[in-house]
């Protein structure tokens, strides 16, 4: 770790000294230390380690704020537990804000006075990012996105080759040699996006979503230049880097003149692109930004696709991605879809806006140094799944899917983990689609 110096301190403190951000100052001054947040946090619940209590994470940032920006903190820091920004507190901040927070926001919902704890954590991360202390493991994914246009550094040739391959899958699956995955087409209703792990390692969710678009007779396209739905700079909390990534998807939608930008199954991608991006790029979107979950629900409601409920008979449960559900308000559509697609749907307890994170949020999947913590906090999710008795777990988030797949092995759950599109696509029968498309 680079030792702290005056320039680094200045860069960090600037985040707390922004007059634009009255929200931050309010929330840094509001915690009453009631401790209700403790039992909402996966890290504290699974370890009983007091350092992990969300209020303690807020305290790290507010102690620095008091030391530099309040009269008593400046003159008599000991009286208000104000702390200097030094190497010790930086090490603590890295460990607790990056390494022990999934940014799930569950503590925020349970806070007695409504402190946006997750926002304070993000601002703490932003301080670290401005000071150059983003963990290398996380920064490597941000860097790949900045340098290559997608977070897995997939080349144009490799991408188009994979899409052609999935187009063949689609044609087989729909029994129609004319079924297509359109690329870079202008003036379509929908510009669809992907999580790069789909083309790289798990491409069947691409042909699944293409099958849904095909069945709904949607006018859609993918872009070969900008398809990455993720924005890992949201996790590192580096605003300039987050802006660069957010601007690209805006520009591409604008260039292709698509009416709707449809975000793939990716929790933080939805949060970052739909809710944070207008702040990053400081302008509103002139086109609609919706999620694939909402568009699939729309197709079913309008009768554009007709799922057959008799195909998937195994007991199926749903994992709610925090950034899609609690933090972005898409709550009912995925349930509506599953109730129309599977015979035996069961909820986890708790679910919806009170659901527990899978343990892989906040960029944790990329940070190998905190792997043991990530898998031990997942004990709660494993138990939730086990108690449902379900043999299929659906989650509309590729990041959650990866964590759930590891939970499946680590906690020997023996379940199948599926994306929502894969479930829906499996329930669309060829004969129904042929009638629809002729």
């Amino acid at each position, binding site marked *: 770790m680079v030792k702290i110096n005056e320039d680094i301190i200045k860069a960090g403190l600037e985040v707390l000294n922004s007059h634009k951000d009255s929200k931050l100052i309010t929330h840094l001054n509001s915690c009453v230390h009631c401790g209700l947040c403790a039992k909402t946090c996966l890290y504290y619940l699974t370890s009983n380690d007091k350092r992990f209590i969300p209020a303690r994470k807020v305290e790290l940032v507010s102690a620095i704020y008091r030391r530099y920006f309040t009269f008593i903190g400046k003159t008599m820091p000991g009286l208000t537990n104000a702390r200097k920004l030094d190497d010790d507190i930086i090490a603590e901040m890295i460990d607790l804000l990056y390494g022990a927070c999934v940014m799930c926001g569950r503590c925020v919902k349970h806070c007695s006075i409504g402190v946006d704890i997750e926002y304070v954590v993000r601002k703490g991360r932003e301080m670290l990012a401005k000071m150059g202390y983003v963990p290398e493991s996380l920064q490597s994914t941000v860097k790949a996105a900045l340098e290559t246009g997608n977070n897995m550094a997939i080349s144009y040739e490799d991408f188009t080759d994979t899409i052609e391959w999935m187009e063949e899958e689609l044609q087989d699956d729909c029994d129609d040699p004319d079924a297509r995955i359109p690329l870079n087409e202008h003036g379509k209703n929908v510009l669809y996006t992907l999580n790069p792990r789909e083309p790289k*390692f798990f491409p069947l969710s691409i042909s699944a979503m293409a099958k849904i678009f095909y069945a709904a007779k949607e006018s859609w396209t993918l872009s070969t230049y900008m398809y990455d739905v993720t924005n890992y700079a949201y996790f590192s909390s580096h605003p300039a880097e987050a802006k660069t990534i957010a601007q690209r998807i805006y520009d591409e939608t604008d260039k292709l003149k698509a009416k709707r930008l449809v975000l793939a199954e990716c929790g933080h991608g939805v949060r970052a692109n739909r809710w944070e991006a207008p702040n990053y790029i400081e302008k509103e979107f002139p086109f609609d930004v919706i999620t694939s979950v909402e568009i699939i629900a729309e197709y079913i409601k309008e009768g554009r696709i007709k799922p057959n409920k008799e195909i998937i008979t195994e007991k199926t449960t749903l994992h709610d991605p925090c950034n899609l559900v609690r933090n972005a308000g898409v709550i009912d559509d995925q349930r509506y879809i599953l109730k129309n697609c599977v015979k035996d749907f069961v909820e986890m307890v708790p679910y919806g806006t009170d659901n527990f994170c899978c343990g892989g949020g906040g960029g944790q999947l990329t940070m190998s140094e905190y792997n043991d913590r990530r898998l031990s906090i997942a004990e709660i999710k494993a138990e939730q799944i086990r108690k449902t008795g379900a043999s299929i777990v659906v989650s509309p988030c590729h990041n959650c899917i990866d964590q759930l797949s590891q939970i499946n092995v680590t906690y020997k759950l023996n379940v199948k983990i599926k994306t929502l599109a894969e479930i829906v696509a499996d329930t669309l029968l060829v004969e129904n689609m042929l009638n629809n498309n002729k």
Partner: protein
Amino acid sequence: MPKIEIEDKVLEVDGNGFMTNPEIWDEEIANLIAKYDGITELTDQHWAVINVIRKNYEEKGMAPMIRQICKATGLKLRQIYELFPLGPARGACRVAGLPKPDGCV
């Protein structure tokens, strides 16, 4: 530094169990990691996948697309998921001694 210990042999890895020094990878290490994942024996099909991944890593410094693995081995997508229950990234690439790929894996 975390370690994988199996059959009295010790291997230095990152927290995710990916090798931190991929250049010392050899067949014995592949067998070691595979056993750790519960794959009792690496078959010819496993090795076909591992060799494609290894070759791509040595030439391009990263894991190949699953498309290339299928093309070069003639295996179907689903067969690869079956061969490596932890998937192409956390399963196959780890056994092939690669460092952890970026992104949501």
